[in-house]
């Protein structure tokens, strides 16, 4: 992103209510899970308190007069994405996933296959509750013949009511479609959620995960092995990042696959450096702390900034940070949600603690300035970019080779 563009969008807000179209029906106000929308008793004017807003987009999909404008994932850009992907891949099935349910678990993949959804276009949204029926109908009109929606299990929705509202809306759309003569499997809903799993053969029974788990989902069972209660697990990945024996995995975010992504990225560093002298950094990003334009998951933000999304900043693993610094990145930035806004349980606070203790370790080899954590929210567009920019500036000013006393002798 060019600097000029970045400054331009700095103050732009992610969600706005357009007074010109608003009919003051206050459906949005009653549906908002965060009580961010209120209406004036006398004038009936509807106001959005952006500081309370979590940018889930549920109001956007509920508004009957399209008066809510959102900077991310509006109907036009979604349709545009679907049409482009159809053209590119030739597939005409669409799978709509929530950030909480993607990457797709193997069980969900099997379920999709069973329902005849094989080659599909994958569309990932922060919450499926933000997809309005209008989008589904337009997608069908543009050539899609089957849509599978994969919302999170209802009790685990990161946006409180998004999964519930979204699913009800899909059921209504289903009824509408059958009235219009579409077959009943045109729109299917499969519930899913990524949860942590313990490899009992690797568990050493230290109990760190059981103490750390904010959901009380882990207990030490006889004989000294941790046990996860899947009913309580929310899939934040905190236990994965604290386990000293690397015995816990979160499907889609395994140690090995993240390491692989890091080494894939780092193999590109020499080429990038030969073109420009700017530092190359890796951003571990909580997937709720920013909404980049349509699905930039696991990709470049620009060529000097590589982005790796995680289910929550709680999953940020100190081993992966070290790996990144070791494999040639000039710096590592961790982006977490703002203080009280963790979509899970205090994952951002845990991440901050972990980063500060890792910084102490890195300080012993004079590398502490190459790691930073920042707190952002998608409510202001470009907030993450601003943080990245100032981190890049700091990295540029650092000496290239850190001095380590032990080797002087």
């Amino acid at each position, binding site marked *: 992103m060019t600097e000029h563009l970045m400054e331009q969008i700095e103050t732009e807000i992610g969600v706005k209510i357009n007074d010109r179209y608003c009919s003051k029906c206050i459906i949005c106000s009653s549906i908002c899970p965060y009580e961010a929308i209120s209406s004036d008793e006398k004038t009936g004017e509807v106001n959005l308190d952006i500081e309370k807003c979590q940018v889930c987009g549920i109001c956007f999909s509920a508004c009957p007069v399209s008066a809510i404008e959102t900077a991310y994932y509006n109907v036009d850009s979604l349709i545009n994405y679907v049409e482009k992907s159809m053209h590119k891949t030739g597939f005409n099935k669409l799978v709509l996933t929530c950030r909480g349910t993607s990457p797709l678990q193997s069980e969900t993949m099997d379920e999709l296959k069973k329902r005849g959804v094989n080659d599909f276009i994958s569309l990932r949204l922060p919450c499926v509750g933000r997809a309005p029926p209008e989008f589904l109908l337009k997608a069908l009109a543009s050539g899609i013949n089957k849509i599978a929606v994969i919302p999170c299990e209802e009790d685990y929705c990161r946006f409180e009511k998004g999964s519930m509202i979204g699913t009800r809306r899909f059921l209504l759309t289903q009824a509408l479609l059958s009235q219009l003569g579409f077959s009943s499997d045109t729109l299917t809903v499969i519930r899913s959620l990524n949860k942590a799993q313990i490899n009992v053969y690797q568990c*050493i029974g*230290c109990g*760190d995960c059981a*103490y750390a788990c904010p959901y009380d989902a882990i207990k030490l069972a006889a004989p000294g092995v941790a046990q996860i209660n899947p009913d309580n697990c929310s899939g934040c990945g905190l236990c994965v990042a604290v*386990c*000293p*024996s*690397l015995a816990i995995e979160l499907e889609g975010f395994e140690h090995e696959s993240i390491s692989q992504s890091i080494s894939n990225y780092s193999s590109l560093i020499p080429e990038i450096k030969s073109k420009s002298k700017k530092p190359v950094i890796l951003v571990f990003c909580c997937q709720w702390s920013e909404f980049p334009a349509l699905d930039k998951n696991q990709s470049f933000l620009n060529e000097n900034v590589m982005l790796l999304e995680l289910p929550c900043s709680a999953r940020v693993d*100190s*081993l992966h940070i*070290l*790996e990144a*610094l*070791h494999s040639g990145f000039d710096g590592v930035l961790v982006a977490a949600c703002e203080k009280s806004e963790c979509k899970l349980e205090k994952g951002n606070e845990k991440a901050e603690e972990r980063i500060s203790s890792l910084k102490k*370790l890195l300080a*012993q*080899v004079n*590398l502490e300035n190459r790691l930073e954590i920042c707190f952002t929210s998608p409510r202001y567009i470009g907030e993450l970019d601003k943080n990245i920019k100032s981190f890049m500036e700091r990295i540029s000013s650092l000496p*290239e*080779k*850190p001095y*380590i*006393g*032990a*080797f002087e*002798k």
Partner: protein
Amino acid sequence: MIVTKEKPLEEILGFLSPYKKILVVGCDGCTTPPRGLREAKTYATLIEMSGKPNNKNFECKATTVGKQCDNHDCATTLTPQIENVDAILTFACGVGVQTLVEVFPEIPIFPGQNTIFLGSQDRDNATMYEKCISCGDCILDETGGICPRTRCPKGLLNGPCAGHMNGKCEVDREKDCAWVLIYKRMKDTGQLDKFRAFRKPRNYQISTSPQQIVWSSSE
């Protein structure tokens, strides 16, 4: 559990600097904080990383052993991995380091951490407390389950001394006087007669280092 603290990286790099291929071994046993595979990998990466800009190309591998104080466990787990290894850096307690030395006498072996004490873990305060000096002559039955040999800096067997104030110790005003704790505990559990009884000096003859016990399953 055996409480340990990692050595400063500078010290570790200092004694590893003559070597190139290093095996970093964690221990999944009782060392606390846990020094398993994660710790071994962390240090393996850190050592390679800090060598690089100083023209020191360490090649580190990370692994872990179930219990490093078990020579059979060490031999079976590590033997397939020590080929071409110049030195071993271990994250076991002092016992584990010495066991490894006996199992692999031909390889230089270095401790990655200092072993501090046998203690308990208070998770909420993230603090470890020393609780036992393994004296070999347990008197916890006479002192309400609180060890004065460990928790009284003077190791008094008939306390408290006159230095306690408001339940705190004169050696360190932050710390509780072990004998005041013992008194309260004995009073609460109706065992003050035991508290008042005279305890003979510790028998050092039965606890001279180094000790050894022959353990056999036929016993």
